[in-house]
């Protein structure tokens, strides 16, 4: 009797073990099921490189190039800000800060990770948006630049904690060897520790950027939602994620518009899949 029970329980545990794979496949299949219907009437090339996103005009146009460029621009801006600052912060926490400060800083980073994105979006609206508008003399403060600043901030927790882990994992003996050769602390950091942790730092950057590409609420509240090809950082843009969040509520189920939003979902899924797989390869490279 107890053997049968044990057998059943082991099977249940096994099922729960593979359920994550099942969920990933289910997510992809359901995105495909709805999203691929679009390509009965729209060619993939037109979808990805089409310059116009007019989903509800007659005839509708489903070109997501403006949205891709919007996501790209915001991500680029966020990357330029967050990579040096985030990695610098990680190095400070891992190598420079005294022990007591280290714990406080890490707690702060964890706190930042926990703040809901809709709250950061709201705070951005009441502080950052008017600031950008007045400081640069723009007609609106809802720009790619505004989104980039807030997103850079949101990429920090991922980037800092993973980079910090990678730096920490560099064997202590490397450090001692460098000191023994008369290297200063800083020389040791940038000649020994950073190269030693390099692949982990790359993984940290990738995952931070992945977080930025997938961010929805804050970016939707801060970037102005204009689905046109942006000319500069100070234009309003609309990202892939914001388009889905904004328009799904109004799209008629089963319409081309509805399918098109799922197609954007497929694009996002594929991007996040590649980012995560690559980051994982980098992370295991260090062994």
């Amino acid at each position: 009797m107890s053997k049968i029970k044990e057998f059943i329980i082991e099977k249940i545990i096994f099922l729960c073990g593979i359920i994550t794979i099942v969920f990933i496949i289910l997510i992809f299949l359901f995105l495909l099921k709805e999203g691929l219907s679009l390509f009965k009437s729209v060619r993939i090339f037109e979808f990805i490189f089409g310059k116009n996103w007019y989903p509800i005009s007659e005839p509708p146009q489903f070109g997501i190039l403006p949205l891709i460029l919007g996501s790209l621009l915001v991500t680029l801006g966020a990357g330029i800000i967050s990579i040096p600052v985030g990695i610098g912060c990680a190095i400070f926490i891992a190598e420079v800060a005294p022990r007591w400060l280290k714990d406080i800083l890490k707690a702060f980073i964890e706190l930042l990770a926990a703040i809901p994105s809709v709250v950061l979006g709201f705070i951005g609206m009441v502080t950052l948006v008017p600031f950008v508008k007045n400081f640069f003399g723009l007609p609106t403060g809802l720009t790619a630049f505004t989104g980039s600043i807030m997103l850079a901030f949101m990429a920090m927790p991922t980037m800092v904690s993973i980079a910090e882990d990678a730096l920490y994992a560099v064997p202590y003996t490397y450090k001692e060897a460098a000191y023994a050769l008369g290297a200063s602390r800083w020389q040791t950091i940038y000649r020994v520790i950073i190269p030693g942790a390099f692949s982990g730092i790359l993984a940290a950057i990738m995952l931070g950027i992945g977080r930025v590409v997938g961010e929805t609420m804050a970016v939707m509240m801060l970037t102005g939602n204009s689905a046109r090809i942006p000319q500069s950082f100070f234009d309003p843009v609309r990202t892939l994620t914001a388009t889905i969040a904004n328009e799904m509520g109004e799209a008629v189920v089963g319409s081309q518009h509805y399918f098109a939003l799922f197609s954007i979902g497929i694009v996002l899924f594929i991007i996040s899949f590649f980012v995560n797989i690559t980051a994982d390869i980098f992370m295991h490279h260090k062994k």
Partner: protein
Amino acid sequence: MKPHTKQRIAFSFLFLCTLLVILPVGLILIIIIKNGLPALSWQFLTDIPRAGMREGGIFPAIIGTFYLVLGAIIFALPIGVMCAIYLNEYTKENIFSRLIRLAIINLAGIPSVVYGLFGMALFVMFFKFGTSILSGALTLGIMILPVIITSTQEALRSVPKEFREVSFSLGISKWQTIKRVVLPCAFPGIITGAILGIGRAAGETAPLLFTVAAFYLPRLPRSIFDQVMAIPYHLYVISTQIPNIPEKIRYGTALVLVILVLGINLFAIILRIKLRRKQRW
């Protein structure tokens, strides 16, 4: 330049970077607390929204978030814990466990709005649950699985191998060992993971957009097939969708959400620190 001067410049730069990350966090919290605190009152927490959400409170949103989070954790906790048990106790490092690990990493990385699409396609449309608490909670549940699995794995790993070996040597079966020896030892760590998952679920907006969230529904849900309001979505609505909402109400809502989410996280962090100190092995 002397190495010492160089080092000083470099360290100042690194310190500056750290300040750039830390200071805004403090600033954001101060702004929300300072402006939100005057809005907080018993009435704000227990009243329904009135006058087109420009007056009254956010009680239905609080209740909505409570139900959603409860549903998500009821769904995700057993599955997540079992999955971690499988990975840690029942399988060795092979191609299959590596696939599962990759799936977990990917689940953690999928944009939240894509979870919203998925929840809509699977639960709302395919299973015909409609836009309901059930659909929203299940969507959130899948989203927090990686958090629960990862922290449960960490908790299981911290239980020394010898504990299992002693139990096996007494002729106790694998599952009995896990149930009687491993899980009780790992229990506090698992609870910490569950709390972190709850914190994550409570703050998410995008997965709720098309699966459950009601724009304005000033009553309490009657069943799991009802729509509900949720605090994060409510904050989104009153800060972007409706003009002329008094600042006070917006900050108040933001403060309630921040207190809730940070409170949950802080609780988990403190629990974790206490556990690490208390661990007897």
